[in-house]
């Protein structure tokens, strides 16, 4: 396992070998299972997010806490046993670098999270669940991302 010190984006594709369009189906399958978990454990619920920010239920803290611990143990095992990707490449972890955006942007996202009851993942799952009005929220989120791109160089980082 090694680190990518200067990744191009925050969830980068670190595979060196080129993948065909169809081989991407495997990510669709993982995403589908992920979306099912989101619905089944009610993570996409606006109420669960309200409970979390009102500290009136342990549910979301339990979900995120367990996920972090399982992820941590998995990465430790990958490192210790020197596990490779299926096609034999070394596993690469993208480095997160500090910027003031983590503070300002993080706070802004938090504000939006409590209003919409959704981070970007649940937005997709809410739409799939039939809350079609969330398409408007989703389009507004795309516009937000686009606006960030537009004014990025004028913002403190």
């Amino acid at each position: 396992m090694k680190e990518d010190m200067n990744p191009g984006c925050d969830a980068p594709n670190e595979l060196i070998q080129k993948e065909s369009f169809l081989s991407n189906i495997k990510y669709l399958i993982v995403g589908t299972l992920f979306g099912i978990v989101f619905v089944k454990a009610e993570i996409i619920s606006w109420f669960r997010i309200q409970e979390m920010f009102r500290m009136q239920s342990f549910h979301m803290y339990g979900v995120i806490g367990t996920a972090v611990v399982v992820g941590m143990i998995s990465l430790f095992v990958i490192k210790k046993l020197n596990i490779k990707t299926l096609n034999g490449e070394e596993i690469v972890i993208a480095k997160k670098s500090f910027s003031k955006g983590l503070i300002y942007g993080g706070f802004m996202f938090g504000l939006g999270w409590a209003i919409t009851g959704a981070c970007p993942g649940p937005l997709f799952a809410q739409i799939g669940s039939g809350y079609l009005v969330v398409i408007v929220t989703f389009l507004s989120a795309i516009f937000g991302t686009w606006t960030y791109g537009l004014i990025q160089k004028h913002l403190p980082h």
Partner: protein
Amino acid sequence: MLEFIKQPWHWSVAGVFIGLTVPVLLIIGNKNFGISSSLRHICAACIPANIPFFKYNWRNEIWNLFFVFGVLLGGFLGTFGLANEADIQVAQSTIDDLRVFGVSDFKNLMPTDIFNFDNLFTLKGLFFFIIGGFLVGFGTRYAGGCTSGHSIMGLASLQWPSLVATIFFMLGGFAMTHLGLPIIFNLINK
């Protein structure tokens, strides 16, 4: 078996599944888990408008778009195939707090008195869909990630900038819930 799956799942089950997404994506294709990046790829693919931030080879990151389309599909299958049969059980204290704001539907995953097309062109819609969505899209990109990229992938790989981000996600959420929402609901219910 199906009966068993149709119950709402415990938080620990969901946590294990979500946590395992990290090694699964790495092992099947060296992909770093993260979701908000998909919004950037959509901008880069559809509306780059010559902005440098959107000029990169988004095709190399297309796995991320397959993944989020899967999440949407999973939302559909989870709801229309394996739906939880009982209504959601919201904490009584949360119900009491939200009733004060005029929220009255506690049966579904989302309160239909807010998330409803009838509210689209109202003040409610402006706050809950337009402004809320904008903050999510702008904030996650400014912070370089969301709950998945920072709070799960970043914390699991012991990266301190992700801890900073997570702390500010939570602070923003607490501020909106306890300071912002009372004002917003007050305006809406006038």
